[in-house]
């Protein structure tokens, strides 16, 4: 991989992040005509208290001064204050980070089963396996992920009692070590399966069409002529070439899974970034929402950068240019 390629991709990621910062400021301070009022709506405040809050939330001065102050704050890792208890946004997000990483990580791994399914479906195009897998993925694609969550919660938790109805662990539990892990895993199982199921179809479709693209390539013909078994041709020659589109779409899907986590976490009261976003929307707690949006975007931009670099590593033609 050329250094120029890596640098170009990094600059692209940084420019996207800069765009998000400007967009974020623009939304909350300019599109939103009266930030002071919409932030403290419905709270009966004395004028001197209001002035103090304006100072604290950096709402005085010209828009340009506010923007400069906002960027300076960000560079110091300061995301402002949540309206709920006036705690620093960064602290609140820090507490919710781990549960979400755990949930989104495990559901992504589950959803990636779709890649294998897609390769097999594409390889045997038109077979019963292919039609079944394709129809199932269209079906899961058509359902809002949080609704799948509601149905599963109603069936497996409320009715059958197999899983707890929500939360990170049993309330009042003081278990530690292994038993705490098992308890959390038990709580995470259902939301992770729901999120995984909601996105397994997308991975499948992408992998399937990538496989179909490679089906007519000459090198597959050659491999068969050499007398390789069908299974081996698929694994050694077709799959490696079908891998490229899957890598770049994985990063895009990562953003979608994050989006899906917002509603799914709120269904299962999973104390992560998704539920925090849900609560911030409901509040409304605009400073919190602003911080969450910035953080989620940064995470997705980073995932895209990793995917781009991986793509360059897998396909030297891209990185060489």
């Amino acid at each position, binding site marked *: 991989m050329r250094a120029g390629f890596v640098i170009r991709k990094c600059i*692209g990621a940084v420019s*996207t992040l800069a765009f998000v910062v400007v967009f974020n400021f623009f939304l909350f301070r300019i599109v939103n005509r009266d930030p002071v009022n919409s932030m403290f709506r419905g709270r009966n405040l004395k004028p001197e208290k209001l002035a103090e809050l304006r100072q604290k939330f950096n709402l005085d001065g010209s828009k340009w001064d506010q923007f400069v102050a906002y960027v300076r704050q960000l560079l110091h890792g300061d995301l402002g204050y949540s309206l709920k208890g006036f705690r620093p946004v960064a602290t609140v997000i820090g507490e919710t980070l781990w549960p979400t990483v755990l949930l989104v990580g495990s559901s992504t791994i589950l959803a990636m089963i779709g890649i294998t399914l897609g390769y097999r479906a594409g390889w045997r195009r038109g077979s019963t396996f292919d039609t079944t897998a394709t129809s199932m993925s269209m079906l899961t694609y058509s359902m809002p992920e949080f609704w799948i969550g509601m149905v599963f919660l*109603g069936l497996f938790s409320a*009715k059958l009692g197999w899983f707890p109805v929500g939360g990170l662990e049993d309330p009042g539990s003081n278990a530690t070590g292994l038993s705490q892990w098992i308890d959390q895993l038990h709580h995470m199982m259902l939301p992770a399966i729901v999120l995984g199921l909601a996105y397994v179809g997308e991975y499948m479709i992408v992998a399937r069409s990538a496989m179909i693209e490679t089906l007519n390539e000459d090198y597959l013909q050659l491999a068969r002529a050499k007398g390789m078994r069908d299974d081996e041709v698929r694994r050694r020659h077709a799959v490696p070439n079908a891998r490229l589109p899957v890598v770049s779409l994985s990063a895009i899907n990562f953003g979608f899974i994050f989006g899906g986590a917002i509603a799914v976490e709120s269904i299962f009261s999973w104390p992560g970034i998704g539920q925090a976003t849900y609560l911030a*929307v409901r509040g409304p707690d605009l400073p919190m929402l602003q911080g969450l949006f910035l953080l989620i975007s940064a995470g997705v931009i980073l995932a895209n950068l990793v995917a781009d670099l991986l793509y360059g590593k897998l396909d030297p033609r891209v990185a060489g240019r």
Partner: protein
Amino acid sequence: MNVEVETESLASPWSIRWSRRRASTAEIARRIRRDRLAVVAVVVLVGFIVLAIVTPWISDRADFNAINTGDNPTNQSPNGDYLLGTDRYGRSVALQLIWGARVSLFVGLVATVLTIVIGVLVGLAAGFFGGWIDGLLMRITDWFLVIPFLPTAIVLASVLERSLWTVVLVIGITSWPSAARLVRSQVLSIRQRLYVDRARSLGAGRLHVVGRHILPNVTPLILASATLAVPISILTETTLSFLGLGDSTSISWGGMLDQAQQSSAVTAGHWWYYLPPGIAIMIVVLTFTIFGRALEEVLDPRLRAR
């Protein structure tokens, strides 16, 4: 073949154009008719659309007003009086379901039109002007493609006023980039074609080339991608309404799911409250997807060849 050409040359240019258009539309319809599943999807969709249009004549929206529901039983399971039971305010779930179709279809279709209009304008401008305009527009498109779709829609909807038009606007602003990319790549390939060169050498201006050669060529692909964008718009509207960012004065499927969640219908076992709206969304999204894919297969020669 020869005979056909001759009869065409005798007719006026207008009638040739119309007969060709009629023929190609008939061809598309014929190909779609061969796909059984697509036919079923179209029938279901037309059913939903008709239902959504006639709703105000077959039922009274006032039935949902608190003043009229005060005496109704609350949280009733389905029975003879209420086919799908009632919610916590005693409103009929079946009636809400019918009214909800209006919002989903309206937002789904209008937001898609907005998405496609923005996408086509950006894609045409980028592909046709090239140079720094292309560079700038594609940079912006990339930014919008990378930043996560739903969180962006959520923050946008949070700072704007709550209304159906806000939902439409938010979906339009967040989902145009893929249409823009599609149109741009098509324009780039079409403007290399010989007939565009010929038109230009005959003195055709930019507007003529775009209007007469490029736009008619990209229209089929735009149509197919628009049909596939409708389900995304419907799902986004559902999610925004579920999060409380929709129009609180109108009844929508996402709003019904929100109400169900707020009244803990899931843990209370009130399945008639949250199952029907979800199933309705699933059917509408599925039928649009099936129809859109069938259309894409017919209109996109690259897919047809396979």
